């Protein structure tokens, strides 16, 4: 008995030795990042660029815990099932220490589920769905970007200041669009009980019949419009809307339109006076942001996009979290990431302990045309922590198992 026990302990100890050696810092700390590189190239190219820039900068300063950072990326082709498979490859084959990334909300949720099941740390960058850290949140998933709720709430706040009473919504027919509309309606009605929602349109994502949609909205004779369309749908919608005069003498409030990924393709047809969330880019003149922009330009000879901000901040947040945890062992990382403060070009942010949501904030402003290109003006930055509901509400939404 005695011999067998010692034998087993000894054997398992020797098996664990390589892991111990790694944890004590012999090789690089590996970040396994999964994103929709072929399905969403417009977003992911500047995003990956910025991640690489951040990794270089962190490594130039000596890395994390005395070890260099290494970034490995994989393409999920926009499908959750592929993302889960590749997460397995990164974890089992490439032996990454942290999982990160995702663009689509359902991919993010699938990766979060994988992380919880396999007890691995996953830091989501771009996915916006609220359920990621609330209804479907879990202990091993953190999310950086301001969620649909956060973005909708600042827009509702701005919309409440407008005289418009008759509102319509136009939004892509999937969860992100549905949540955006739901929160906006709820939060605006709470501030302005006199407001009425007289109609809505739900074009299929990526296949909007813009003329018919604009015509239908026009028929409802609204005073205010909430738009959640983005990408090619937004381009179609704006062109038809401009020609048919949908936006004239109307207030328009629009989610994400201020991001250069969506504003630039509008060209000289960019609408003016829309209240939008977005990213003013090089117009931000804080020292942190200027340093980021010049470093990005120096390396890539292009302006940083909103995706760049996200990618850069993601890597920095991971570096800060691991440094605070003092280890790459999963449970210690979870404790370390909770409440960690990190620098981003937009300012300081943290991962809240209560729901593991990042407090990276939202830029809100108005659209305008400058030199035949759309830009954000009159913008201000609102810290993410001011956009989240009260703690009791959050605790009620998150499952008990997530702590």
């Amino acid at each position, binding site marked *: 008995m005695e011999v067998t026990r010692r034998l087993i302990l000894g054997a398992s100890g020797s098996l664990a030795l390589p892991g111990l050696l790694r944890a004590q810092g012999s090789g690089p700390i590996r970040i396994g990042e999964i994103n929709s590189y*072929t399905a969403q*190239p*417009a977003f992911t*190219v500047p995003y990956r660029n910025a991640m690489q820039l951040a990794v270089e900068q962190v490594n130039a300063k000596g890395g994390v815990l005395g070890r260099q950072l290494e970034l490995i990326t*994989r*393409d999920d*082709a926009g*499908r*959750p*099932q*592929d993302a*889960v*498979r*590749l997460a*397995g*490859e990164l974890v*089992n*084959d490439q032996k990454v220490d942290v999982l990160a990334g995702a663009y689509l*909300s*359902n991919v993010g*949720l*699938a990766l979060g*589920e*994988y992380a919880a*099941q396999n007890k691995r740390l996953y830091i989501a960058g771009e996915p916006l769905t609220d359920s990621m850290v609330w209804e*479907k949140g879990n202990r091993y998933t953190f999310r950086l970007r301001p969620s649909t709720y956060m973005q909708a709430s600042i827009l509702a706040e701005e919309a409440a200041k407008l005289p418009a009473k008759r509102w319509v919504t136009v939004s892509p*027919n*999937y*969860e992100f669009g*549905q949540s955006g509309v739901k929160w906006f309606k709820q939060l605006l009605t709470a501030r302005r009980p006199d407001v009425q929602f007289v*109609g*809505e*349109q*739900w*074009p*299929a994502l*990526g*296949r909007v*019949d*813009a*003329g*018919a949609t604009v*015509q*239908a909205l*026009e*028929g409802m004779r609204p005073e205010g419009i909430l738009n959640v369309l983005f*990408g*090619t749908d937004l*381009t*179609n919608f704006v*062109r*038809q809307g*401009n*020609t*048919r*005069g949908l936006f004239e003498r109307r207030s328009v409030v629009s989610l994400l339109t201020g991001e250069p990924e969506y504003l630039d*393709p*509008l*060209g000289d*047809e960019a609408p003016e006076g829309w209240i939008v969330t977005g990213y003013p880019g090089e117009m931000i003149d804080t020292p942190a942001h200027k340093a980021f922009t010049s470093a990005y330009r120096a390396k890539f000879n292009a302006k940083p996009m909103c995706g760049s901000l996200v990618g850069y901040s993601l890597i920095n947040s991971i570096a800060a979290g691991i440094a605070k945890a003092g280890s790459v062992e999963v449970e210690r990382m979870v404790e370390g990431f909770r409440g960690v403060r990190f620098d981003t070009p937009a300012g300081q942010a943290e991962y809240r302990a209560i729901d593991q949501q990042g407090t990276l904030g939202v830029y809100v402003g108005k659209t305008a045309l400058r030199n035949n290109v759309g830009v954000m003006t009159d913008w201000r930055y609102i810290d993410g922590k001011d956009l989240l509901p009260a703690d009791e509400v959050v605790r009620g939404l998150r499952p008990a198992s997530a702590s």
Partner: protein
Amino acid sequence: MDSILPQLLTGLATASSLFLVASGLTIIFGVTRIVNFSHGSLMMLGAYIGWSILTRLPRDPEWFVLGVVATVLATALIGVLLEVVVLRRVYRAPELFQLLATFGVVLIIQDVTLWLWGAVELPLPRPRWLRGFVEIAGNRFPLYDLILIVTGPVVLGLLWLVMNRTRWGTLVRAATLDREMVAALGVDQRLLFTSVFALGAGLAGLGGALSLPNASANLNIDLSVITDAFVVVVVGGLGSLTGAFVASLLIGILQAFGIVLVPKITLVLVFLVMAVVLVFRPNGLMGRPQSEAREASVAAPVVRPAPPALQLLGAAALALAAVAPFFVGDYYVTVLTDACVAIIFATSLHFMMGPGGMASFGHAAWFGTGAYAAGLLLHWLGAPMPLGLLAAPVAAGIVAALFGWFVVRLSGVYLSMLTLAFAQIAWAVSFQWVDATGGDNGLLGVWPPDWARSPRTYYWIALVLSVGVALLLRRALYAPYGYALRAARDSAMRARSIGLDVARLRMVALVIAGAACGLGGAIFAYGKGGVFPTYISIPHSVEALLMVLLGGLQTVAGPIAGALVYTGLADILVRSTDLWRLVLGAVIVLLVVAFPEGIAGAARRLWLRGREA
């Protein structure tokens, strides 16, 4: 309601755009019988080429017209290139092989376009005259949309003139009715096909160029346009230009008014229309029944029991698969598990497609149904995995029976398109019925019980189930039912004349295929930890087709070979290069050109060298 007229006109403008794209597709299909998946890609190229040309020209209307004409010619040239290099080599192959080749072309064009023009959306700056509008019933109506409304009928008229008043057009119409006869009359079939393809591609390019003022050149055009184009072509009747025009009008107007009445119907409207039309008019509004008699002359080769060498090979492969987890890491074990699911996916499709003669473009629907059944049982009733695995084939079989009742009454491409319509409806249900299915965020937390959760154990479960399903299906094929099914496919007329119930045989094949596929879906769901609407997507159905056709339709081992090759290839490529679509597309095209009977079919041919079949 003073908004009826503008809404109607808007619908007409949409109809014109739809017609432009669909016209090329229907002409190409009518003559060459090719289901050209790459038609949307040609329109996308038209948009990008149009952008490149028009942004370099002055902005007056004359130059716009010139630029559009140049784009049409350029796209027509690309169509010719495509036909000569790729499609010409696969005319001899069964119809669906051409489909496979065109799908490879879609992948290639996606990466080529990205490489040439970049990732960012390219809008065409609109000069003043393109932004103009007129006042109609108190609403502003875009001038350009009026131009579009006129363009549709003008193009229809020009095409009608070409088809009915030129010798070439007469040949094209004759070839649409009876291809073999036209060839027998001494017409150079190759030249005819190439010129038809050029016309079709040119029309796609026209559609792409004319879409620029209202939209932009972007990388989503190909896939977003192709489904609508197929729906219009099928609803109108394959090969019928007037049918395509009428169908475009129907769909454009229905859509314009539909979204006012039921805004959320956008996901499913066109497919509902297609399903309804096909149920009442199985050949589309104006289509003709496809000539069946000549088709049967390309008979399937004889199916014999596998030679002992092959059986030994199969046993060896199985033994290797069983011990694989001891030699490879956990990740590769999950890839092998995915391969097991792929085997079920492919063999079940092959069952109804090869011996059954029914090509399904919507096979992923049963896969998803099975997955959702298992997931929902877990969520609502806490049902453990064995129960989920039992319920999945039952649920999928029931749904297959429901859809199948309509499907087996059709044949040929119409049958395939109806399966596509039903699959899209199923997808839309899973996507939109958020309360039941979780919507596009899916159902999470669908995991196996603790004892089955390690990758190895789960793999062995999947292996046993997939081999079991494949063997059961094979067993059925060599039993009287399988023979009867093949008899119904070889010659429905002869089958009936010996007393076989062809419709019922096919229905049962569909239910069996659906049920088996549903089991695969459930295994997949437990392996991934969730169920998502992407399980029912068109690309997923296409993957099933790819696997079956790659492996070859006419052998029982074909789908297994295809499943293994495709899963392995896709996994390696995705992890090796950002340009994996280009490489995968090229590999598919090369395989189709080199092995029109598929991999297993080619192996069989080599094996039979010198021997009689």
